[in-house]
């Protein structure tokens, strides 16, 4: 059951209760208080939301009463992300990760940092010269926040779940994408692998370092481009589900036919934010459910 239907059910339940009470005591002064009871996220469920921000990434993770955000889309998507977090009743964020300083990942982060109290900010130590990146630095300073560097192997607790940093494995790269902070999120026997825009170079390093990459859900890095999701990486992760966060009809050819073919060949279920909007995975620690059916890759997409 998705969150909306849960909320509707909870509200219906509340209304029925209130109606019964009103009948019983024949009094109309009783105020329904179902609003306050729906604010708390279930303690034994982890949800991973791939928010539809067009061409870009923004991932909300809710684990029990704790939450974190990875990236916040382009500059003009900051308000979309903030609104989504508010609708999800997020009051604070335990962690915010800016995977790397490209505008389609960190563009809306300044809005988020302005709006919500944040405990820990994790970003790689690589600079971009854009105003977009500078805005993020300025808000961090204004909020008296410092940045925690991603160190491979570092483990963080998030309510009933935890995540481990798996990338970057080097400190200097040619491409900014390869500085992407990668994490593996684990909740009991389920896991999610999220690696920003890391290319196959960074994937190769993860493989070489013997990191356990196996996961149920893989976000296809770099919007499903041909520079990421190498066959050896996919075979190490062995996901049941893959998700692409991408803009409709983008000019960059994302996701690439080569990546789609590799996904189809392996029988991995694909989800796309451009075709399906925000995609939400819910884990009870054993099984994972999705708020929508998987996307069927067309022959046309494989021949591009």
């Amino acid at each position: 059951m998705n969150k909306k239907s849960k909320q509707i059910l909870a509200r219906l339940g509340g209304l029925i209760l209130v109606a019964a009470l009103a009948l019983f005591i024949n009094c109309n002064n009783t105020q329904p208080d179902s609003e306050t009871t729906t604010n708390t996220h279930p303690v034994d469920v982890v949800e991973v939301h791939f928010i539809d921000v067009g061409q870009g990434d923004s991932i909300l993770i809710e684990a029990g009463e704790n939450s974190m955000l990875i990236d916040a889309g382009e500059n003009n998507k900051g308000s979309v992300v903030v609104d989504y977090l508010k609708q999800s009743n997020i009051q604070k964020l335990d962690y915010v990760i800016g995977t790397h300083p490209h505008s389609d990942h960190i563009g809306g982060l300044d809005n988020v940092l302005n709006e919500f109290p944040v405990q820990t900010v994790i970003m790689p130590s690589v600079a971009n010269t854009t105003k977009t990146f500078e805005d993020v630095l300025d808000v961090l300073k204004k909020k008296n926040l410092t940045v925690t560097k991603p160190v491979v192997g570092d483990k963080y607790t998030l309510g009933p779940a935890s995540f481990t940093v798996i990338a970057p494995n080097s400190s200097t790269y040619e491409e900014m994408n390869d500085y992407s902070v990668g994490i593996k999120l684990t909740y009991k026997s389920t896991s999610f692998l999220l690696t920003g825009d890391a290319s196959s170079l960074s994937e190769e390093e993860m493989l070489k370092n013997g990191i356990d990459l196996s996961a149920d859900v893989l976000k296809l890095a770099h919007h499903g481009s041909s520079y990421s999701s190498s066959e050896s990486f996919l075979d190490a992760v062995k996901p049941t589900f893959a998700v692409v966060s991408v803009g409709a009809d983008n000019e960059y050819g994302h996701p690439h036919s080569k990546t789609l073919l590799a996904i189809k060949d392996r029988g991995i279920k694909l989800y796309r934010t451009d075709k399906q909007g925000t995609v939400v995975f819910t884990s009870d620690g054993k099984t994972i459910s999705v708020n929508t059916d998987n996307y069927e890759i067309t022959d046309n997409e494989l021949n591009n």
Partner: protein
Amino acid sequence: MKKLIIDRFEGKYAVCELEDKSIINVPKYKLPLNCKEGDCLIRDAEGMYQKDSETTKIQEKRILEKMGRLFS
């Protein structure tokens, strides 16, 4: 004359940030050789792009100073 900063490269485009922080795709072939992410550019009235190395240096210095205070 327009000022731009190369945010990143995607396929055949350089994705550039304009002064109002909006994003445009500039075909790579229109750019001078050896451009990299973070380079500041100027587009003249004829639509020709040139590197603005001076501005790039100033930007880099300012950003690195700001990062130095924030990154532990």
